[in-house]
C-alpha cells in the first residue's frame, strides 16, 4: 500500500509572507502619526442666550494679572464661605501662575461647594497661550470641566 505512506508534512514558503510583512511595516511606518494631538474644549463666556434666561450656577471667575498673579472670584456659590469667595494668588518663583497653590485652593473650594464646575478665565493681552492652557489643564484636573475664556 504505497498510498498510505504519503507524507503529510509540507514546507511553508515563507518568502511571500516576509514580503507582505515588510510591505506592511513600510506602509505603517510611513503613515504613522507620532504626535498625539488633542483639544482643550472651551465654551465662550460672552454671547449666546440672555442673562435672565441663563440658569444661575456657581461660577469661578479667574482674572489673570500681568506678573503671574491671579484673582479668583466666585459668584452664585451659596455654600462657599465668604472668605473664600474672593482670593488673590501670588505668582510662583519663576514668575508664572502658581498652579500648585491654585490646585490646593480649588480642592478647598470644591469641598465647600461641590457644584462648582464652571470656570471663566479672563486673561490679559500679554498672557501667553501656553499659560492659559496650563491653567485650563489644572482646572480640569481639579474636576472643573466647564471652562470659558473671556475676550478682552
Amino acid at each position, binding site marked *: 500500500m504505497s498510498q498510505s505512506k504519503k507524507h503529510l508534512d509540507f514546507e511553508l514558503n515563507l518568502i511571500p509572507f516576509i514580503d507582505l510583512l515588510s510591505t506592511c511595516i513600510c506602509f505603517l511606518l510611513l503613515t504613522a502619526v507620532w504626535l498625539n494631538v488633542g483639544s482643550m474644549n472651551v*465654551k465662550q463666556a460672552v454671547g449666546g442666550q440672555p442673562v435672565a434666561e441663563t440658569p444661575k450656577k456657581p461660577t469661578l471667575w479667574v482674572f489673570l494679572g500681568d506678573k503671574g498673579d491671579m484673582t479668583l472670584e466666585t459668584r452664585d456659590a451659596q455654600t462657599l464661605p465668604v472668605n473664600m469667595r474672593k482670593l488673590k494668588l501670588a505668582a510662583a518663583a519663576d514668575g508664572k501662575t502658581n498652579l500648585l497653590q491654585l490646585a490646593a485652593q480649588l480642592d478647598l473650594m470644591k469641598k465647600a461647594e461641590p457644584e462648582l464646575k464652571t470656570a471663566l478665565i479672563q486673561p490679559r*493681552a500679554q498672557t*501667553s*497661550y501656553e499659560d492659559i492652557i496650563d491653567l485650563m489643564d489644572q482646572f480640569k484636573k481639579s474636576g472643573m470641566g466647564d471652562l470659558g475664556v473671556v*475676550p478682552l
Partner: protein
Amino acid sequence: MIKQNVIANTALDSPIANASFLNPKGKRWKKSLAADLLLTALIDAFSILVIFLLMNFSSNGEILFMKKDMELPRAARGDSLDRNPVIKIEEGKVFLEEKMLTAEGLIQELLELRKAFRASHPAGEEMPTTITVQADRRTKYEALNSIVLACAHAGFSDLKFAVIMK
C-alpha cells in the same frame, strides 16, 4: 523526508551547534561559511512590529497641518480632536482652512461657512458650533482675542484649542 527540508537543516542542525568547538555536532572540519537565517525569529519580530504599528494607525488622517516651527501647548487632560473648521494663527496672520484673512474677513468667512452648510443641508440641520483653534504656545492672548470675538459674532460658541497630549 523531513531531514531534507528547510526546518531540518536550519533548526535541528543549527550552524552554531555544528561550528561549536567544544561539542561539535556536525562534521568538525567541514565548517560552512554560509550562515542559515532563522526565519521564525524574523517573522516573529515582523509580526510584533506590524501589530504595534497597526495599533497606532490613525484612520482619520491628519486633522491639523503644522509648520516645523509651530509648537502646540501641552496638556494632560485634553479631549480627542474631531474634524471641524480650523482657524490657525501663524506669524501673527490668521488663516481659516489655509485661507489668510483679517479679523473682519474672518467673521464674514465664518458666516459664509454657515450659509454654505445651510444650503447644502436643506432639511434644516444646524451647523455644529465648534471651531478648532491652532496656535503656537508662545502666542499672546491679544492675537487670540480677535478669533474668540469673531467666533462669538459668527455664532461658534465652542472652541477647541489644539494641544499636544502629555
